């Protein structure tokens, strides 16, 4: 097959992160996202407070980190985008890669919208534009949310234009490539995020009532440890928080130099992500403590997560706190930076896959792919009904895209293709922390069990009641239909042949690595 490729034009060499440090920064930038700030604090509070630390650490060590290393091993050994890497692992595994690419497509389309809201709220913080009714302002004035879910094309300019700005910025980063785009963006935005967020936490700690907030967050409820739902929440959170199982870490690690300490770097990424979450918990609950005190209520009356925390509770806090506008800019600015560094990693999964499949160059693939995602994002979400669509696609792509996809991937790799010994050998080849039998037991045993429990739970809850009481056709189309459509489309994309220019057919760089590794093995066997 390789004979078909024209020998005159040698294929371009694969891009690389120029240093290990830049890879680690980019991987942290990807893992640290909106979820760390607006999801973790609530999940921890709701599942045992201080006692949650135990299931959280257990989930991190027994599932999150092992799965992270699985992604690293696949991407680094097979040096390709998710579909190409899985194809090189085994032909039958290619659809897994496309499934992950499509999951990333859906996520990127709506994730950018939340960043656009955050950008507007950074500006609103200066004037406290929401007045004394943050909730009414967000849903009514800002989003102009329609009464009922549906598909409408009543565009909301206050969302559309910031979203356009976000997409232009992100496309510029993607076009510039791994070194000049992604590495550079992360090495600027991530330190900036850390500094801003630290300032925010310090400011929150000085608010009256902060101590009550921290009491609520850290006081352990030991009885929670006997509840399986608490353990499931810990595993669920770890999966989403570390961005494992949907192609991101496969793609990023494929840009690593050959002799990189994979597990040593991964440990830094995993613990940085958790370190940031703990910090977010402290900052958020200190602020919520202040909010409860100002309202003269208990913490449990003000505690919330997600959109409610960011766009209703925080604006309320900003209005009441001394130096409120500063706090607002720090908080919403952090959401923007955390969001952008994650969004580019999600997009890179798709861009890399298209580059590999069609043999396109960086610029063409980035412009076409990001342009397409941007068009879908701008076409469907900045509308009066956009929030319903966002909510539904988020819920279903998380349950039946990321979670189910991760489960199928792990089962196929560990049990059907039995590739864990090969991947463990690859991790140990250059890494400082060795992954042997325990790692394989965790990936083949603990991880699938946790994922089966989560998928089953999600399936039962979503089948017994229509999601959020939205109309059945709406959930059927944009929830179930979308999630099922991704699987069908993944199979179709697998069947479409790889371009003759594609590296799947002719990749001397990869071939030389395979040959070298085979030689090395022979030598060791002697």
């Amino acid at each position, binding site marked *: 097959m390789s004979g078909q490729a024209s020998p005159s034009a040698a294929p371009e060499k694969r891009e690389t992160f120029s240093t290990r440090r830049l890879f680690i920064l980019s991987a942290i930038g990807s893992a640290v996202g909106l979820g760390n700030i607006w999801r973790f604090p609530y999940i921890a509070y709701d599942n045992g407070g201080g006692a949650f630390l135990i299931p959280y650490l257990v989930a991190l060590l027994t599932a999150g980190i092992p799965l992270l290393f699985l992604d690293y091993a696949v991407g680094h050994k097979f040096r390709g985008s998710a579909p190409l890497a899985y194809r090189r692992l085994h032909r039958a595994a290619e659809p897994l890669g496309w499934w992950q690419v499509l999951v990333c497509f859906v996520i990127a389309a709506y994730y950018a919208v939340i960043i656009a809201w955050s950008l507007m709220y950074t500006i609103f913080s200066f004037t406290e534009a929401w007045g004394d009714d943050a909730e009414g302002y967000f849903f009514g004035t800002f989003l102009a949310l329609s009464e009922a879910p549906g598909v409408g094309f009543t565009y909301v300019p206050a969302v559309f234009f910031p979203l356009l700005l976000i997409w232009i910025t992100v496309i510029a980063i993607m076009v510039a490539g791994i070194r000049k785009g992604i590495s550079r963006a992360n090495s600027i935005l991530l330190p900036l995020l850390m500094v801003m967020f630290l300032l925010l936490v310090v400011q929150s700690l000085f608010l009256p009532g902060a101590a009550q907030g921290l009491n609520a967050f850290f006081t352990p409820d030991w009885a929670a440890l006997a509840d399986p739902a608490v353990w499931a929440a810990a595993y669920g959170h770890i999966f989403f928080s570390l961005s494992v199982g949907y192609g991101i870490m496969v793609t990023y690690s494929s840009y690593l130099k050959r002799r990189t300490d994979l597990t040593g770097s991964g440990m*830094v990424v995993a613990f940085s992500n958790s370190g940031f979450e*703990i910090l977010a918990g402290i900052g958020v609950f200190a602020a919520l403590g202040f909010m409860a005190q100002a309202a003269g209520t208990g913490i449990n009356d003000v505690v919330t997560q997600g959109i409610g925390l960011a766009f209703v509770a925080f604006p309320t806090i900003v209005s009441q706190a001394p130096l409120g506008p500063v706090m607002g800019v720090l908080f919403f600015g952090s959401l923007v930076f955390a969001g952008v560094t994650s969004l580019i990693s999600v997009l890179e999964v798709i861009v890399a896959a298209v580059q590999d499949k069609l043999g396109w160059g960086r610029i063409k693939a980035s412009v076409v792919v990001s342009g397409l995602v941007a068009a879908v994002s701008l076409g469907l979400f900045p509308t009066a009904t956009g929030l319903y669509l966002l909510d539904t696609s988020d819920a279903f792509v998380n349950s039946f895209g990321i979670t189910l996809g991760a489960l199928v991937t792990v089962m196929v790799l560990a049990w059907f293709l039995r590739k864990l010994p090969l991947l463990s050998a690859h991790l140990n080849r250059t890494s400082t922390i060795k992954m042997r039998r325990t790692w394989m037991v965790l990936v083949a045993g603990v991880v699938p069990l946790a994922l089966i429990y989560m998928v089953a739970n999600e399936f039962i809850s979503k089948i017994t009641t229509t999601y959020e009481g939205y109309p059945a056709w709406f959930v059927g189309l944009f929830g179930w239909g979308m999630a099922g459509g991704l699987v069908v489309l993944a199979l179709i994309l697998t069947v479409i042949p790889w371009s003759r220019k594609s590296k799947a057919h002719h990749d001397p760089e990869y071939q030389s690595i395979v040959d070298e590794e085979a030689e090395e093995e022979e030598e060791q066997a002697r």
Partner: protein
Amino acid sequence: MTTIAITMMIIAILTVWGGLALSLLNLKRHPEDEGALPEEHAPEL
């Protein structure tokens, strides 16, 4: 803050940030092999 909340906060910070410190230390002890770019053949091979 209550004693138990302070204790749990300290334990959380020590385990998670301690883990980060240890993993950074491990990485520092094993500096990057600068010569091994993927496009280059490692000299010893």
